């Protein structure tokens, strides 16, 4: 129709439109536009020829009788569904039971810990003087200014 060369690739931007053309999904104007392009583009013309020739060839597939399900197909499917359910239902039930037990254990544990916390007496707040005494004990100040120098520089004496 448009060309003889087979195996050429069409212009990438036009492939979808060419597929529409061979499947007759285009309006008369759109089809005419494709034909005009194909007359001036050897690649699209060749690809269009090849793809167009595939339509009647592949159409033979529809003439071939379709495979039919066996008469017991529906019964087999439903038996398989029930079989799978029988396998998974006890597992599902056990999983749910485990979930409930785990939730109950966590709740009981949380309640117990809350209860324990409430039973412990809250220690009274320390007095201001006690706080000051604690601060002075934990951070001893050097007696003299020079001692602090000695403390810092004592590491160099050995050298």
């Amino acid at each position: 129709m448009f060309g003889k060369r087979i195996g050429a690739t069409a212009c990438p931007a036009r492939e979808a439109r060419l597929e529409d053309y061979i499947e007759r999904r285009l309006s008369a104007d759109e089809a005419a536009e494709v034909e005009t392009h194909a007359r001036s583009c050897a690649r699209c013309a060749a690809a269009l020829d090849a793809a167009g020739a595939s339509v009647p060839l592949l159409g033979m597939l529809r003439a071939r009788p379709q495979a039919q399900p066996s008469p017991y197909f529906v019964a087999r499917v439903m038996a398989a569904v029930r079989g799978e359910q029988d396998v998974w239902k006890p597992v599902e039930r056990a999983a749910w039971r485990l979930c409930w037990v785990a939730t109950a254990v966590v709740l009981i544990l949380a309640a117990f810990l809350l209860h324990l916390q409430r039973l412990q007496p809250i220690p009274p707040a320390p007095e201001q003087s006690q706080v000051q005494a604690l601060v002075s004990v934990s951070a001893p100040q050097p007696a003299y200014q020079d001692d602090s120098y000695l403390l810092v520089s004592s590491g160099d004496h050995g050298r």
Partner: protein
Amino acid sequence: MTRSAGEGQRSEVADERQLVRRAQSGDEAAYEELVRTHQHRVVAIASRLLRGSQEAEDVAQQVFVKAYFSLRSFDLRSKFSTWLYKIAVNECWNHLRKKKARPLVYEADLSEEQSERYQGAAQRSGMVDPEEAARQQDLVEWLLGQLDPKDRMMLELKEAQGFSIDEISEVLELNPNTVKVRLFRARTKLMELYRRRLNPSRPAAKRG
């Protein structure tokens, strides 16, 4: 008063939705009805995509079992049939992948003598002779078997199962434009193989 075709179709869809809803709430009889309605198409798809394999019906059965247990995830936004065919195509694809080798019924390469016979058949138009038609169909099957499995699947859905572009794009989760491009390329590849098969000397002469 007679109902129009559109009304009939709408009512069918509504009935099917009702069946799906009932099946979703655990009504096995409703699901059985859905299986009965779609069994022919699913078996045909499996048989085509698995190339007439004996396992096609087992795979089709697996499709329905899988669909039953995934039914709650189906949100009724698309057609039940499209959702089911998507499961069927995926199941066939997984089956082919597990098997690694393509299970071809028509896997034997064509001899020169067969090529000549097919060439003769291809050149004649009309094809009244059923034997010749069968031979042509075998040739098409053989050619499809030579394609990349994804290209083949797309052509099978389009040409053998009569899927629309929209249906293919939904089943394969591809943009409709991508489907068209891939179909077009698959067609040209198929015809390239066809020419080479019928004229084996042509590409060899080119390469040499």
